[in-house]
């Protein structure tokens, strides 16, 4: 199914882009991250990331649906 990923901060730098659309068989954010981290060379373990789907935080094992917008969020540093 088609999924959209947005990248921020060091993940965007590493990916070389702010967004991409891909076809994936991943059923959960956890499976998707494993796939993308290998392809893009992301170094973060999932325990150091949060994940959002369609603009809301979700669990790593939440089900994904076609057309979802997924964001892997590295540790924040605002303020």
């Amino acid at each position, binding site marked *: 199914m088609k999924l959209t990923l*947005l990248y*921020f*901060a*060091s993940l965007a*730098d590493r990916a070389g882009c702010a967004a991409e659309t891909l076809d994936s068989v991943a059923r959960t954010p956890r499976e998707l991250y494993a796939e993308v981290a290998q392809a893009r060379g992301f170094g973060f373990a999932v*325990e*150091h*990331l*949060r*994940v*959002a789907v369609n*603009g*809301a*935080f*979700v*669990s*790593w094992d939440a089900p994904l649906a076609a057309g979802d917008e997924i*964001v892997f*969020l*590295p*540790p*924040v*540093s*605002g*303020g």
Partner: protein
Amino acid sequence: MNGEAGDARGQAAMPMKRFQLSEEPIDVGAERPALDHAAAGAYASFEGWVRDHNDGRAVQRLDYQAYAALASTEGEAILDEALVRFRVREARCVHRVGRLAIGDLAVWVGVSADHRGDAFEACRWIIDEVKRRVPIWKNEHYVDGESGWLHPDNRPAEGV
């Protein structure tokens, strides 16, 4: 007579969000009237400024990047939660995004309350939560020409 009453009344009078991302310099004077309240005797505020150094390195400027959609809802959730957790009258926060120079105001929090203890505690809690939860990232540009995104790695992300 706490924040909940203010909420109910404020639907019409206070359409503005309590949490805002701003690409323009923060105008604290313009934010203040939202916190005025004839019954509120105490106002506590916090401002975070861009420092000229961090971790022993000389900083020249920095960029804040936000996942705007989620930062807005998460920031709003923090302020709404503050009005429930603390006996305060009103609370606001503005966070800059984009390019900032040394001495620029990066984030402002303002809280009004009947008593100073509540104002201080809520203000401190809000800035702590904003720094912990809101998806905003800082890219520091150092005087030596290098730059880097800050991802505090001493504390794993919590919850979901």
